């Protein structure tokens, strides 16, 4: 038997030393733990459909250079922090200096703050299931830590623009940590974009801890180019009566992988997870979500939609784990999928694991095509076939798009969707 391939040690060489000692130490520890890390294969259950899409060349092991400038000037209606190749560009960033909310790069932290952060990083994720999150911890060169004091409210959305400049092969490791104090509120928009054409990997980790009553909205826009393998993880831990809302909008690529793990650790916590994925050509997108109902009286609501056309492939794996003490849990998971061509593939797998006896738990998954009857109805009114297709496809996801609470993001999503429709539905 052939030995399982392991991650090349070249991938365990971090760049950039401008970090406080505790973070450098954490990086080193994680790197050491990843020596001989087996790469996922078809037999790795949670990478079953995506392992063949993972193509890590030696050239990609190198950290993409820190350019020191932003690749594209994005106007955003709010505060923004710009990262290029995983390193923050202060000149391109604009955010307020507030008493009750601190926004700092990792390099700005005091020794004590860095020690505290080092203990918290990776704590929101089940690291056994997201090994690439460990790679991020072994490789990050910079990062953003956002701390909201109790009752602090960020009055505008904070955009974090993560761009990679793929003028040469390499990798980038963006990292975000958000600590939301009791009853604090923040809307955080993560935008992942790229320039350049060389094959690169973007390996992201974003973590949230929500104290009692905190209210966090996270919008994640994955819009990297066709040369970018994107492997991201988001971890969330929620205390009593906190609320986490997520909107993941994904556009396909050679490899797109996002793991979203939410832990409802105290009573009254609730999360709402929305996701939309569109893939075309030979693109691939794989969403894995896990909701851990650990405490009683928590609610989770999850709605994901995939649309795949041409020969593309979308994957949804949604796991809900209701622990023994999580009585009166209310969990609702719904995944609907739309195949626009016979060559496209969608795999969906809802997983429910329930150990409490007094819970409400529902799940549903469907895969279908555009409804011929509806299409006929629309064209019978003179609506061009292409437009009828667009109307019906948009109808499939519109319910989720309209829920995105930031108008500028909705506009960006519409623009990208129109590009998708232009290619998916040629005029007939």
């Amino acid at each position, binding site marked *: 038997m052939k030995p399982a391939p392991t991650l090349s040690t070249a991938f365990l060489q971090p760049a950039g030393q401008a970090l406080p000692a505790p973070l450098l130490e954490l990086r080193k520890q994680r790197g050491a733990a990843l020596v001989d890390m087996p790469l996922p294969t078809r037999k790795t259950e949670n990478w079953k459909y995506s392992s063949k899409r993972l193509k890590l060349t030696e050239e990609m092991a190198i950290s993409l250079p820190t350019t020191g400038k932003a690749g594209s000037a994005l106007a955003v209606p709010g505060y923004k922090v710009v990262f290029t190749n995983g390193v923050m560009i202060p000149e391109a960033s604009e955010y307020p200096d507030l008493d009750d909310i601190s926004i700092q790069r990792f390099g700005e932290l005091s020794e004590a703050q860095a020690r505290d952060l080092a203990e918290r990083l990776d704590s929101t994720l089940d690291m056994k299931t997201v090994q690439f999150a460990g790679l991020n911890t072994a490789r990050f060169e910079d990062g953003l830590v956002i701390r909201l004091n109790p009752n602090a409210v960020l009055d505008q959305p904070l955009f974090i623009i993560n761009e990679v400049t793929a003028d040469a092969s390499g990798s980038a490791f963006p990292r975000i940590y958000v600590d939301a104090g009791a009853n604090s509120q923040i809307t955080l928009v993560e935008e992942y974009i790229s320039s350049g054409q060389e094959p690169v990997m973007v390996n992201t980790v974003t973590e949230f801890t929500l104290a009692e009553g905190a209210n966090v909205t996270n919008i994640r826009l994955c819009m990297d180019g066709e040369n970018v393998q994107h492997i991201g993880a988001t971890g969330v831990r929620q205390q009593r009566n906190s609320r986490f809302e997520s909107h993941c909008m994904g556009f396909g690529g050679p490899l797109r992988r996002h793991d979203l793990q939410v832990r409802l650790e105290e009573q009254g916590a609730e999360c709402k997870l929305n996701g939309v994925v569109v893939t075309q050509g030979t693109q691939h997108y794989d969403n894995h979500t896990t909701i851990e109902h650990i405490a009683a009286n928590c609610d989770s609501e999850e709605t994901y939609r995939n649309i795949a056309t041409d020969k593309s492939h979308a994957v949804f794996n949604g796991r809900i784990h209701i622990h023994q003490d999580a009585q009166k849990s209310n969990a609702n998971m719904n995944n609907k999928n739309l195949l626009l061509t016979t060559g496209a593939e969608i795999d969906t797998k809802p997983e429910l694991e329930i150990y409490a006896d007094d819970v409400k738990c529902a799940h549903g998954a469907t895969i279908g095509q555009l409804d011929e*009857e*509806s299409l*006929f109805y*629309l064209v*019978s*009114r*003179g609506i061009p076939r292409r437009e009828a297709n667009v*109307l019906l496809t*948009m109808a*499939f996801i519109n319910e989720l798009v309209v829920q995105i609470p930031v108008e500028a993001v909705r506009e960006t999503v519409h623009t990208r969707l129109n590009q998708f429709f232009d290619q998916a539905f040629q005029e007939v």
Partner: protein
Amino acid sequence: MLSIKNLHASVEGNEILKGIDLEVKAGEVHAIMGPNGSGKSTLAQVLAGNDTFEVTAGEVIFSGDDLLEKKTEDRARDGVFLAFQYPVEIPGVSNMQFMRTAVNALRHHRGEPEMNAAEFMKLAREVSKQVDLDPAFLKRGVNEGFSGGEKKRNEIMQALMLQPSLAILDETDSGLDIDALKVVSDGVNALRSEDRAILMVTHYQRLLDHIVPDFVHVLADGKIVKSGGRELALELEERGYSWLGIAEDEATEASSAN
């Protein structure tokens, strides 16, 4: 305006239409009656271009053109309108978006400027009153959660918005109470004009009390077996279909089905 000659159509190898001949001139209202399964709805669907049905023989000339050669959307742009027997529900597409797209597709075809949102809303509000639909329905999904009667009124509303030259009404009266029947009939009567033809498919003569046809045809087993004036409908009401040699059970089934 519409000339149907020896039209044959099948679905999955079963022949439903077995040689239909029909001439409809501008300004005329024709009623097509007949028991269930006689092919009435198939005729309506074939004219609108539903490719579930395969036309195996015959021709249909509409305003001088071969209708069967045209795609559904082109037929609509040339003025063919089908009021569906079972209008589909399309959640996620609002009635307003749907109707405005349709109106503008036709205007575009005619070389007219598109209607902006405000102009469209003004027109849509007026027409919705005409068919007694609360304008709030415009914001809802197409036919989503509509009662049977609301769906039928929505079909007539679309006809009034799109002003077709040939309106085909497929069982537009089924499932309507007396009040709704009156509203729908008033809408259809508002469509009557010298340059427009109306083809009504119906089981029941009661619709014809409100919309008086110029001609009545009886369809049975895929063929028109009898044609006449509106008195034919009254005769059918009195005597049923059996005197025309249509099986009694077929007719009974037809009158009990709704």
